[in-house]
């Protein structure tokens, strides 16, 4: 059993984790950074001050400018367009002096009925009461998405290229080969919550936006720094917004998108703009998606205590009820890591590490597992930190401590990704709360080959489901063995579990280590 207590103590304040060599993490002040890569990924810095978020609140200030002496018809039409049936009814109810009494009364009744029904619906699925921005912040992979200068990050699966989505709704693309950094902006590109490059393609980037999906085609040979919005393809479906998670199939042919509001997840053939909705009502929405690297399974997490594993030849799914799940998939094993609140005190300077897991990232060789631990915003000593484990999956699954990754002073990690094709081990890219993007290489010799010889292995993305009321229940469970980072499956039994996929029935054999 691996616990955080076995970890080497975190670096001193003022020290920054630079790289891993000879099985230990090397720290230093940021100047003495000596990396031995052929292409040093640029360490970027986006200051929060330079980025202006769009001040476009949901209910805009349009009402202040509208002439309220419009005819009833005009106002009703406007209300219908803006807010649908409920808006129309509201408008009719409120303008009682212009419409006959029976109409006001009946629309008032219908409106009350609708509200009662929607409140009932929302009590079933509490996340539906959130507004659009809050919902994206809640379900995004980024820790405290709304004030993070970096909203999303994506490595290209095959080349040294990455895309960064910033607070001001623009996306910048960095390339190893050229100094040109194209900036992508689009009218519909608002509150970007996820990005992913299309596998087996050089130039296609899918962006999950507030109202739609944008597919950018960025010509790698182009010299333009500002591709026109004609390069973007807009995919939208009524009722399918905000989109918080997207996942390309590893073969590059399909794109799956999910929205916490929509109970259906969409399978897109992007080029032909055809979508097939896959509807399953339970769970009240889909928050996060992740393909297994061989493309045979797809994991879909929901806001409630439920997630599904889709099998992608006939698109049938299995329900996995759990307390709450964060999921990580391997072609052979499906490892369900449930969040476990673990809090313990490091002796050195009373630093508290542990707590809820924000996200997990597994490097493509399967040898390093980075866990982003949520901190406690109230306490000074308890900040978010990344814990890195060494993992081995054969002959048995093993977790060994590797160390903590720390950034500059007062910088919290917000988002992390492994580069999918690093030659000398693994390269972890971390986006910090002060707007810096740094790269931490882990130099080691991979024991196993990357999983398949077919398409290049893809990074394992983590999936996250949220908790609303169950924190207490879980911490109760966790209190009994504090000091353990526990990755657990749907059931509450302690320890590590993995199950082969052919034994996924809810009470199939579990293997505990």
């Amino acid at each position, binding site marked *: 059993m691996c616990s955080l207590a076995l970890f080497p103590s975190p670096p001193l304040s003022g020290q920054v984790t630079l790289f891993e060599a000879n099985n230990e993490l090397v720290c230093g002040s940021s100047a003495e950074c000596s990396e031995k890569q052929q292409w040093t990924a640029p360490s970027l810095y986006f200051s929060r001050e330079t980025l202006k978020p769009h001040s476009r609140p949901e209910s805009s200030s349009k009402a202040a400018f509208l002439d309220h002496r419009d005819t009833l018809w005009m106002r009703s039409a406007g209300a219908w367009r803006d807010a649908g049936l409920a808006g129309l009814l509201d408008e009719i109810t409120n303008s009682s002096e212009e419409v006959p009494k029976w109409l006001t009364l009946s629309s008032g009744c219908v409106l009350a009925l609708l509200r009662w029904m929607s409140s009932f619906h929302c009590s079933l699925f509490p996340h539906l009461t959130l507004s659009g921005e809050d919902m994206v912040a809640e379900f995004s992979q980024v820790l405290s998405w709304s004030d993070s200068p970096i909203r999303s990050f994506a490595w*290209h699966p*095959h*080349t040294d290229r990455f895309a960064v989505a910033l607070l001001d709704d623009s996306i910048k693309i960095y390339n190893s080969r050229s100094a040109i950094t194209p900036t992508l902006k689009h009218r519909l590109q608002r509150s970007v919550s996820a990005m992913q490059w299309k596998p*087996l*393609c*050089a*130039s296609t980037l899918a962006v999950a936006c507030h109202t739609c999906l944008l597919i950018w085609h960025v010509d*790698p*040979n182009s010299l333009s720094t500002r591709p026109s919005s004609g390069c973007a393809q807009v995919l939208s479906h*009524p009722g399918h917004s905000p989109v918080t998670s997207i996942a390309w199939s590893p*073969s*590059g*042919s*399909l794109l799956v998108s999910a929205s916490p509001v929509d109970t259906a997840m969409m*399978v897109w*053939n*992007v*080029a*032909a*703009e*055809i979508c*097939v*909705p*896959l*509807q399953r009502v339970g769970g009240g929405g889909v928050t996060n998606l992740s393909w297994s690297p061989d493309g*045979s399974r797809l994991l879909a997490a929901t806001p409630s205590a439920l997630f599904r594993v889709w099998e*992608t*030849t*006939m*698109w*049938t799914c299995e329900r996995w009820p759990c307390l709450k799940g964060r999921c990580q998939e391997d072609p052979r094993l499906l490892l369900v890591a449930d969040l476990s609140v673990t809090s313990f005190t490091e002796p050195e300077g009373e630093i508290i590490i542990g707590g809820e897991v924000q996200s997990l990232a597994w490097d493509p060789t399967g040898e390093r597992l980075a866990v982003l631990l949520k901190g406690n915003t109230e306490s000074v000593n308890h900040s978010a930190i990344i814990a890195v484990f060494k993992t081995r999956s054969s002959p048995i699954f093993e977790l060994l401590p590797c160390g903590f990754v720390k950034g500059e002073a007062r910088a919290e990690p917000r988002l992390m990704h492994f580069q999918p094709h690093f030659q000398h081990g693994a390269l972890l890219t971390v986006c910090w709360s002060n707007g810096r993007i740094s790269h931490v290489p882990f130099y080691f010799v991979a024991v196993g080959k990357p999983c398949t*010889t*077919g*398409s*290049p292995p893809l990074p394992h993305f983590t999936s996250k489901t949220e908790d609303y009321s169950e924190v207490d229940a879980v911490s109760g469970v966790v209190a009994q063995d504090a000091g353990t980072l526990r990755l657990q499956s749907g059931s509450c039994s302690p320890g590590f579990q993995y199950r082969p996929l052919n034994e996924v029935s809810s009470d199939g054999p579990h293997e505990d280590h």
Partner: protein
Amino acid sequence: MFSFNQNCWFIRKVVRWRGVASIMWSVLLLPPIISLLIFLIRFSVFHPTNWISGYLGLLTEVSTLFSVFLLCAAVIFLAFFNLQYYTVVPSIPCSRVALLAEVLHLRQCIHSLVHCAVGMLIMWCVCVMSGGRYRTLQSPCARSESDGVDVCLNEYHMFMLLAGAFMGYSYSLMGVVQNVHYVSFQIIQQYKYMRFKGSAWGLLKCSAVQSLYFVRNYVILYFLLGHVPRTWISNILNLRVDSSVHSLDSFGGLCDVSLVYQLWISGTFLLLTWNLNVLLFRIYVTEPYRFLVQSSFAEDAEECLPKVLTEKNSLVLKFLALQDLALLSQNSPSRRQEVFSLSQPGGHPHNWNAISKECVSMLNELTQRLIAHHDTVASNGRAKPPSERSDSGSGSSSSSADGGGVFGTVMSGAEEVLQTPHRNDLIRTPGSVFGSAVRTVNSPMTAPFTPDLPVSFSSPALRPLFSPHVGQRPWLGSVQSPHVTRRNPKLWSTSPDSRTNGSSPPSPGPAPQPAGEPKPSFLSQWIQNRKEQVKGFFAKRVLVVYLFNKLPEASSQALFADSQAHIWALEGLSHLVSVSFSEDKYGVVQTTLPSILCCMLSLQEAVDRHFKLPHASSKPPKTWSSVGDSTYKTLRFALRASLKTSIYRITSTFREHLHAVSVPAEHQKRLQQFLEYKE
């Protein structure tokens, strides 16, 4: 029904049963739909108890049972009748006049007529079931003037019957415009029940909306022309028109809300039964079929995948075989092993050779088609010397005696359609026998209508789902001359003779002119001038221009109309090649790798060229609710994307090993681009 007689084993053994099963299901679903219909049609807010009791009473009546029986018979008949209209390759008219010709085609006329009749029958059943004022055609007059009881015409009944006929005709017409009988394949595989469940709600909504539009049109039409059928029917049946009640073609008569509501509900029912039938058929037919890769018994040999892929008579068989190939290459290692296996005595990779050869030849055929299209468009963009034009004019002068010829000439003025015969030859290059044969069929009437592709006016008749296709299909003879496969980019704009070295084009079109051509005589010069004048005259007429102007991007859509097959071929090939890196024990794939790469890269080049043409990369407007499947409109984008992905799949698997593969220099360069992820 008719097409079931074909002696293709697949139609006999599989498609027939799938069709029958889909019809069975649509019949089984009919009773619940009918009971829902009666429930809704008897709807009344003010008498709920009457409504419910009337509903229950109607369900048990003999006349209802009889109507249900009749409805089932009608649905079965129509389903069998429609079987011959289903197609896996949509027909895309390139101009409005081609669309018009398609609508006026005999086949389509029969289709419309049958739908009219069946629509009327269904509406009659609905009238009988709903009872009340709709029940019979005759009704006792309200105020009889003479002593005996007079029989008057019940206009409500007639109104409903005519509505049925109108909706049947509109449905059939919409079928042509929206390609309702086009069977498209899903992007993901789902079980039939899940697919049905997923699309049932959309189907209902779409039927209701469509019915609303039809009702609107019908009411307007009846308001204007309603008196014509009324007097006609009353004269024929010797019934009197009751003058005491409002006639329905007046404003007051049509303001009857319950009438319009009932018309809408019954129209929805009518369309729903038909759409349901189409949906079920699509779901059943496109279900993947698992072909044997190889069989140890000789009698099964023709049912095996390598043999089936080369099938030319039944398109649905070919499509399903390609789909199966794409699926097996992705997710069934054991069947892939069979593909890579060697024959037992002899040790030849027959399976792989047959499969790869067929796929490559299909792709090459597409490349050639694109090149030909591009060349014609390019040559039409330029101004041509008059002598050449006169020559090309003489090509169609055989048909210029009738009106079609005139139109043809006009058309060439506006667009490039005069080139059609020549182009058709080009497209069917290897089978030049068919080139001439087809032209004799087409030329007198259809040549002017024929847009720039074979996928046009006469095509729907030639490309039903089951029937053998009549040598029209471009992939018929797909033996490629190596010259065409390894074209240089500069060949794009050269004269046509270098293009068609495989065949001797019998076309009198703008064929290369020998240098020592005698000067055109005075007479031909004069004819030429006249023709120019006529052309100029017609080109100015708005209607003619409207009819003959090509619809934007239609030619591009038509070029890629059957591209679903190419997409599967690309996916299947690329997956097989990339897994062969680890799974192919005997190195079977290595021998064909250069030709596959060449084929894909030259297709890539041709596709790139094509997308630089105007309208080729413009997207069609989105339509959310329509029964017709509009997926064919975006097939070319899907093909482009899957082509690129396929090449990347191969390059990312083989990486630097690809330098050892011998491909021509220009392909080598392109390959390098792919290896560096610069495409």
